[in-house]
């Protein structure tokens, strides 16, 4: 399942259930989303195809580092959250 918040929610909707290929990674899932929703590709990736700096990610409600953990494999049932910089309080 993918959860999206704030500006990304406006593009993707709050929740999407996606079916994963065997041994799919976080990057694979983001690429699937980008392919399915061009506005998300525009918002989340730069021209070279790299994830933009301000994109934040959580897997199962724990923050992951987009520069290190994009190759992390996902399991069936994992929850990926994608959102812009925090602005609470």
């Amino acid at each position, binding site marked *: 399942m993918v959860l999206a918040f704030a500006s990304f929610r406006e593009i993707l909707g709050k929740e999407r259930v996606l079916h994963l290929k065997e041994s799919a990674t976080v990057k694979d899932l983001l690429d699937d989303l980008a392919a399915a929703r061009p506005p998300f590709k525009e918002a989340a990736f730069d021209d070279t195809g790299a994830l933009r700096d301000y994109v934040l990610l959580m897997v199962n409600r724990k923050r992951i580092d987009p520069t290190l953990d994009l190759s992390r494999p996902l399991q069936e049932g994992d929850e990926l959250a994608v959102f812009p910089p925090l602005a*609470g309080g």
Partner: protein
Amino acid sequence: MIQITETEISLDEMIKRARSKDAGAMVTFLGTVRDDGMERMEVEAFREAALMELEAIQEEAMSRFHLIAAEVVHRTGTLAVGENILAIVCSAAHREEAFSGCRYIIEELKKRAPVWKKELGEKCERWVGQTSSP
């Protein structure tokens, strides 16, 4: 007590819960909707993750600053100018600890709690804290 709520924050209730015969000081922080030329604000949270994060921050503040109580309530939904977005109440034996604990919670909340704000004006809307698109 940690809460994320769609309804108005009752500071009174929070202060009542934080009051203690062992407390000599209570420090309260209220974040309010400032008029930056907009009409209203929408506050959105990743509720489950934000509650977990706020609970962790509360525990850290309690033990680092020897707080007697720490209350945090974050509002979500549509808010008017002047309304409370967030309330934090910290009680401690002495004022140094109550100030430091309250300050710690707001600074960590801003860094760590998955919450977003959107300013809505007559003609434009803007997600707070995002300099570039989206």
